[in-house]
């Protein structure tokens, strides 16, 4: 069981499961019983502030680091090295040969994955087209902008069409165009029924992308599950209507009026309440010209679960996290 609050749809069994991951570097506990589930066909976000332990967890998933305790499972059994090498990994810090042409580098990586040169070239070419880099295929990586290099890095992670794609902070430092390209490719990947996990500390940026989330703070999972359900289960969900709502219009078990103003009323919805049902109760008393549901943002969910804002970095920053492999 994943520590922290957890809501799961349970519809599709997860392909990737991490259980009870503990990792300590010297005296510093970096991961404290962290669990994670990645079902196929869904965009899963591993979210939390810098230094929360996201990169360390991803390195453990890939076997780059061996955790002190805990297990990583794939398709219901312990993940093997061969499983891991079939996945695609885009690390936080970009890793490409700067002096190698883009297409050649992608074909080479595809061949390392066991593809033929022809297949590797075909897939790499298609990916470059999808990522808007078809005309830069023969350029060296060092001649590309940061955003372009990032897209090439993504192509390198998925040129072999991996069953699981793991992206560590894929949106860090990207311009909106690159974010859009990345989001499209990610969407296509999961639409094909494959698995995707990405990490980010920019919760507002990935608000619309995540379907499932695992919020991690100071090495512990503080919230995880289906984002829509987590929002529905939140105590910080409001229905805004353009009428002055009296206290007795709505069953307090469903919603309570939190504020009234000239513009209307703001009702706090009880966890799990259907906002439509509350709206119907209000409409029974008067005409509603304008209304809206204010679900908590990812940042608010994090604040609620962790007790501090996400932009308040943890004691150890991400630099230390990158550094995490270091011996004590």
């Amino acid at each position, binding site marked *: 069981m994943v520590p922290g609050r957890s809501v799961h749809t349970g519809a599709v069994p997860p392909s990737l499961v991490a259980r009870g991951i503990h990792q300590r570097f010297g005296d510093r506990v970096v991961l404290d019983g962290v669990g994670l589930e990645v079902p196929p066909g869904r965009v899963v976000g591993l979210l939390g502030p810098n230094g929360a332990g996201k990169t360390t967890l991803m*390195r453990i998933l*890939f076997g*780059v*680091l061996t955790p002190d305790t805990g297990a990583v499972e794939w398709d219901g059994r312990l993940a093997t*090295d*061969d499983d*891991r*090498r*079939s*996945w*695609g*990994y*885009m*690390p936080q*810090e*970009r*890793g*490409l*040969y*700067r*002096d*190698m042409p883009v297409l050649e580098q992608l074909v*080479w*990586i595809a*061949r*390392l*994955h*066991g593809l033929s040169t022809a297949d590797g070239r075909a897939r790499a070419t298609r990916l470059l087209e999808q990522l808007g880099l078809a005309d830069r295929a023969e350029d060296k990586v060092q001649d590309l902008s940061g955003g372009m290099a990032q897209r090439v*890095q993504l192509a*390198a*992670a998925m040129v072999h069409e991996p069953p699981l794609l793991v992206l560590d902070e894929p949106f860090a430092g990207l311009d909106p165009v690159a974010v859009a390209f990345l989001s499209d490719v990610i969407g296509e990947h999961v639409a094909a029924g494959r698995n995707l996990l990405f990490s980010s500390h920019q919760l507002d940026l990935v608000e619309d992308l995540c379907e499932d989330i695992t919020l991690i703070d100071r090495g512990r999972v503080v919230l995880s599950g289906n984002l829509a359900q987590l929002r529905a289960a939140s105590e910080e969900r409001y229905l805004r209507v353009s009428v002055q709502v009296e206290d007795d219009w709505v069953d307090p078990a469903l919603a309570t009026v939190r504020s009234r103003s000239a513009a209307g009323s703001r009702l706090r919805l009880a966890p799990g309440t259907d906002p439509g049902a509350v709206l119907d109760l209000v409409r029974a008393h008067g005409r509603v010209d304008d209304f809206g549901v204010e679900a908590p943002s990812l940042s608010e969910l994090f604040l609620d679960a962790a007790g501090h804002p996400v932009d308040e970095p943890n004691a150890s920053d991400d*630099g230390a996290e*990158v*550094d995490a*492999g*270091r*011996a004590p």
Partner: protein
Amino acid sequence: MTSWWEATRLVAARELRQAARSKGLWATAIVLLLGSAAAMVLPDLLADDDRDRYDVAIVAGDATIELDALESVIVQIVDAIDADVELSQAPDVDAARQQVLDEDVDVAVALDEPPVILVRAGTFDRLVGALRQALATQALIDGLVDAGLSADEVDALLSAPPAEVEELDTERESRQGAAFVLSLVAYVLIMLLMVAVANGVAVEKGNRISEVLLAIVRPGPLLFGKVIGLAVVGCLHLAAGALPVVVKVLLGGNLPEGLGQAVAGGAVWFALGIALYLLLAGALGALVERQEEASSVVTPLSFVLIAAYFAGATSADSPVAAVLAYVPFTSPMVMPSRIAVGAASGVEMAVSALLSVVAVVVAARVAGIVYRRAIVRTGRRLKVRDVLGS
């Protein structure tokens, strides 16, 4: 999923392809080729086939000596020292002295009693010796004629065949030269390749390429592929340098004594030495992640290599070298040199090669462990002890 070997091959092939793109590496190969070609061709071109040619002035003076006969003897004796002589007459000693000082002639001979040879101090020693001998010979001929011998009898006496010179231990110098050249080539090549491997590994670590690649392939192929790729690049450089030597041999040219055997026999140690040093250099390169740290991290290996080089280049047949021939770190440079000077026995070669193979196997394992553990530990320079102890 690729096999271990296929991954190693792909990594090595990438190194080769990148090397082929590097203008610097092509420039090095061309310099080596041209330098080697020059070393093969120039000595023959510059070989001094022309005989020395001397100008000698003779002051006849009041001497009773027969001038034509003397000139004939001078020409003969100077010819014996592989030189030609142009004889001229000077009116008097002062004029001859001035001609010598003005370097109009090399030497002047005044036929006084006794004759005087005029020469600027410290020059034309061989010519002076030849002239003294010619004067003495002419005096002897005159004496023999005076004593009643006929001209034919004198000629017969003087035409006795000259002594033959037998040079001893002529091969030693060329064998020592071959040993020196081999040690130098091995030293330079291994040193350059060590730095290249350490540098390549460190840069990949610094650029986080290794993290991407480690998610795809095992650490072994990454390290071994790089070592093999760069070693092949190094050997191709070596081949560029060796090509003129081979061409010269095919065209019937002469090589220094011992070089051929030493190259053929030494190739084994050469390959083993490259494997040993480069594997360790790769592991050491994984301890750092900046290019400028890469050459310093292989410094301890460099010291060992330098010591091995001096042992191989300078005293290949010494007792110390006999011991170092068994040490895997020194045998790559000492052994070919010992083969060159003919100091290596068959047993020594077999034992030394075996020890080197064992050392390479052990080095591959240790280097693999250090590389695997160090390559993901970024942020600061690591120590081998930290890595092995973790």
